């Protein structure tokens, strides 16, 4: 089934924040710091205030004690939390930090006036390298802390030291998971309006989490939560970058209340690069203990995460997901992980598609390849050897999570068959002899998604779902998930339609408006279908029970004998004895012929709390040829076999896999946020920061195995991030494999052409 969302989006009939306008609306423009680290000495706003059309100029001093700090939801032992205000007060800690905001009657005049604000900065030394930041001599990002270490988190299980002593070999490697910029197609944007009659503050924001945002805005503004309404209209992508509470969201809401007029702020692309969260930025020093026969006994990792200057909502929690998933899809009995979070004078990192799991998958999948190389074994064989077997599930890992279900061997086998692995290896040998560099890369991944049980989530991990059958038999679904491109308006309608025996065209899915939808958690962590979908699925079961009871009453039979048919409720075994769906629905509303103690109406809500995460998995095979003269990487084949449990809509699943792989390709080959040592972002726009273009994307061959999840009744797992998690190591493994004849064992991402060319040149290709 095609996406129900697309006709309106393709025709330009969707309404994003910037498509909305209110009478009397003002525009905000933000002055941002050009310095990475500085003391704010003085701000002279008089010229800006005098400029044509300017209504107000606000600085940090104006919000001191008025607006609360930007929240961090991550709970880690001994986490240092510097106060983080919507506008800088006293100190600047990264380039792009908001210093002042101009509100004017027109967005051009607001922007012009920004240039008229004079700020006296006292520049301070900046630190941008996380390892240098940990040195004693480093400038401190926050003076009130004794050093730049933001947090320290450890896992140790299964006696790793003992395992390392028993090892035949120890394989070591350092991996840099570079800083990335999410670059959602629609930047952030906020429109806020305060209606003094009903005392209602309405905030439209391009967000993934409208309900959590509402709670936080109420807290930051000190406004009663029931007087705040947050609406996420059409959202043009998030990839985690809108799974956050940003200073601008509170600031614009505050301005609307203060000035008594609607205020809109739209982020420019430049601001989006500087001041929307970044992703990844980890250094992983990994060592594994292996037996000569290929068994991996233990893994140790020191993980240094560059968190940037401040915490955003989940900043320090992201690397803990790396920790939980670090053993990948292998039965490795012992582990020791030490994660150090570090402050630097850069934008905060936070959740970016995959959020912690791509880092884990990258390091373990690269490591397994290095083990194969070291032992002279085939990388497929080493993987097979260390997989848990199907009978091992549910499988408890030493990192403390329980993989719900899996059959890793079946997936790998299918991927190798589809790719023609044996033949590829023969072909590779031939081409190597001709001086051509063909490489074959594998990635067998597992990931943590359907986030998640509330015990493991900072702000609840459940989801709400409401199903309402209207008197005409049409159905309205309200979900606490907040889809922004994933397509749940389609897949949720399919599920409800299937359950009720009606057409998906008779179902509408409403989301993103806190006044319309019961409280929910939002869309992130590949959770919407497995958690939000399940809530809705359970709600519709309640309605089915009610419909059957009523139909039984109307037909004079025991409700247990009623089943759902196409557009009707039928007595089992007697297909002619039935009531139409509409008749039963109308009976529930007209309420004249109800069974005793039967509530009129047809609406049910479920708040679903999952008992565990789900753990989708898969096997990807990438085939590349490296141009020996230029270092250019050509992806010749890409085979993705994914297992996300039961599939509701294959088109949506394929779309998620395609998009995820493309995003991974960006990280593998060219994406890289580069700051210089003074904290200036050198890749500050799309002319410098390369995201994949259509011409960079290979044909992607997708296939699936199906291992249902026992965690939810639909048996679904989630697929929103799988491609991004799986594909980065598959591509890098392929390129490293291609250059194996030159003795190459690792190459740092991104695999820029010049980097590969230099390797080829140095080794005399």
């Amino acid at each position, binding site marked *: 089934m095609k996406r129900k969302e697309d006709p309106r989006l393709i025709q330009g009939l969707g309404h994003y924040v910037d498509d909305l306008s209110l009478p009397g609306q003002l525009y905000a423009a933000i002055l941002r710091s050009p310095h990475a680290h500085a003391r704010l000495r003085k701000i002279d706003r008089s010229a800006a205030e005098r400029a044509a059309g300017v209504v107000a100029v606000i600085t940090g001093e104006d919000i001191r004690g008025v607006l609360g700090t930007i929240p961090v939801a991550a709970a880690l032992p001994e986490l240092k939390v510097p106060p983080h205000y919507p506008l800088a007060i006293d100190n600047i800690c990264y380039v792009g930090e908001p210093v002042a905001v101009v509100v004017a009657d027109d967005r051009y005049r607001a922007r012009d006036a920004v240039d008229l604000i004079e700020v006296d900065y006292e520049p301070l030394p900046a630190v941008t390298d996380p390892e240098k930041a940990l040195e004693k001599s480093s400038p401190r990002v926050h003076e009130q802390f004794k050093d730049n270490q933001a947090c320290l988190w450890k896992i140790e299980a299964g006696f790793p030291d003992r395992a390392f002593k028993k090892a035949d070999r120890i394989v070591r490697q350092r991996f840099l998971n570079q800083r990335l910029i999410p670059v959602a197609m629609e930047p952030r944007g906020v429109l806020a309006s305060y209606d003094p009659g009903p005392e209602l503050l309405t905030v439209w924001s391009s967000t993934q989490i409208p309900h959590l945002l509402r709670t936080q805005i109420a807290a930051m503004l000190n406004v009663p939560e029931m007087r705040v309404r947050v609406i996420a209209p059409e959202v043009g992508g998030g990839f985690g970058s809108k799974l956050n509470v940003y200073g601008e969201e509170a600031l614009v809401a505050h301005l609307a209340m203060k000035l008594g007029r609607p205020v809109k702020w739209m982020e420019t692309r*430049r601001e989006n690069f500087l001041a929307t969260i970044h992703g990844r930025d980890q250094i992983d020093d990994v060592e594994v203990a292996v037996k000569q026969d290929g068994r991996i006994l233990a893994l140790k990792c020191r993980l240094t995460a560059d968190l940037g200057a401040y915490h955003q909502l989940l900043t320090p929690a992201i690397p803990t997901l790396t920790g939980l998933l670090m053993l990948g899809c292998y039965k490795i009995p012992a582990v020791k992980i030490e994660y150090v979070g570090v402050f630097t004078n850069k934008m905060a990192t936070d959740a970016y598609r995959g959020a912690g799991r791509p880092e884990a998958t990258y390091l373990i999948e690269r490591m397994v390849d290095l083990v194969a190389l070291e032992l002279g074994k085939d990388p497929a064989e080493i993987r097979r050897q260390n997989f848990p077997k199907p009978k091992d599930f549910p499988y408890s890992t030493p990192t403390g999570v329980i993989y719900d279900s899996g059959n890793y061997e079946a997936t790998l086998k299918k991927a190798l068959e589809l790719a023609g692995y044996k033949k590829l290896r023969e072909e590779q040998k031939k081409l190597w002899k001709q001086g051509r560099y063909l490489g074959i890369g594998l990635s067998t991944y597992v990931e943590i998604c359907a986030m998640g049980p509330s015990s493991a989530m900072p702000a609840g991990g459940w989801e709400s779902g409401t199903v309402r059958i209207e008197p005409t038999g049409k159905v309205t679904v309200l979900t606490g998930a907040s889809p922004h491109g994933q397509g749940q308006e389609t897949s949720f309608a399919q599920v409800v339609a299937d359950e009720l025996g009606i057409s998906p065209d008779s179902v509408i899915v409403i989301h993103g408006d806190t006044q319309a939808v019961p409280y929910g958690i939002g869309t992130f962590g590949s959770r919407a279908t497995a958690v939000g979908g399940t809530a809705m699925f359970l709600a519709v079961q309640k309605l089915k029970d009610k419909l059957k009871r009523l139909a039984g009453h109307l037909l004079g039979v025991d409700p247990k004998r009623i089943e759902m048919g196409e557009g009707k409720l039928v007595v089992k075994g007697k297909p002619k004895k039935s009531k139409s769906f509409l008749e039963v629905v109308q009976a529930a509303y007209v309420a004249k012929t109800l069974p005793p103690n039967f509530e009129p109406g047809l609406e049910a809500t479920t708040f679903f709390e999952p008992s565990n995460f789900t753990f989708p998995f898969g096997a990807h095979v990438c085939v590349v040829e490296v141009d020996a*003269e*230029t270092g250019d990487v050509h992806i010749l084949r890409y085979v993705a076999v994914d297992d996300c449990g039961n599939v509701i809509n294959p088109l949506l699943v394929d779309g998620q896999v395609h998009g995820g792989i493309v995003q991974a390709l960006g990280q593998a080959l060219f994406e890289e946020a580069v700051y210089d040592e003074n904290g200036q972002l*050198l890749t500050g726009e*799309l*002319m410098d920061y390369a995201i994949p273009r259509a011409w960079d994307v290979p044909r992607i061959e997708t296939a699936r195995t199906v291992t249902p999840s026992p965690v939810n009744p639909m048996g679904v797992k989630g697929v929103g991030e799988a491609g991004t998690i799986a594909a980065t190591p598959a591509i890098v493994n392929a390129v490293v494999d291609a250059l194996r004849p030159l003795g190459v064992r690792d190459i740092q991402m991104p695999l*820029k*052409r010049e980097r590969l*060319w230099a390797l080829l040149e140095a080794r005399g290709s």
Partner: protein
Amino acid sequence: MIPASFEYFAPRSLEEALQLLAHHGTEAKLLAGGHSLLPMMKLRLATPRTLIDLGRIRGLSYIREDGGRISIGAMTTHAEVESSELLRRRAPLLPETAAEIGDVQVRNRGTLGGSLAHADPAADYPAALLALDAECVLTSQKGTRTVVAKDFFVDMLTTALQAGEILTEVRFAADSPRTGSAYRKLHHPASGFAIVGVAARLTLDATGKGSAVSVGITGVAPKPYRATGVERGLLGQTLDAKRIAEASAQATRGVEPLSDLQASARYRAAMAAVFTRRALAAALGRAQKQG
């Protein structure tokens, strides 16, 4: 991405545009397709007081051949160059180059004249214009003058255009028999501009020797240049893969290659040689096919 305020004029004739340009002087910028100027204005890297939009002037968009000379109006879009049957037959180097510029949207709006006048050192067209020995026609209220491509590109973002002049036309000779050409490019992964772009055109005499060889290179230096060292190595020689490879090693002779995040000077120089060889080899193959 909000530009500073500016005054906007949309003249209907070239005369009117020249008058406006003379009146507003250096405060004014000419707007053609806008695909370089407008992004710079949105970032406030350019803040012209006045924009003179050439888009409504009739008669600046054409592709013609007259007696073996091809002329192209400055407002001809990249897409029109790319798809021109006349050019594909008579001077295929230019449509092949146009096809490598940006993406479909850029090619539908961007213009030949706009690109040349902007003189981005990584733009694609300049390489082809140099290889074609093209002339640029510059028009002012005083009349017109022509400048050969080699002299038109003065430096990074600087051309031979004087105050009050508008680039109105580009002219060059159509391919003679037994001529082959090719444009080969290593694109910047973010911007799509050329890290190295090489346009080669060569003509063979009856014995298979190179009777004319021209190589234009963009992206490598602050301004596009003719790789004269390469050309000298091939002129009058029997052309084959080996000779082309040898000559291509001279691609950056006398040039100091640029260096940036995507490509160091050393890498650029190496790639200039590789892409020169590839462009020449392709051009030779095409010339030979013509028998």
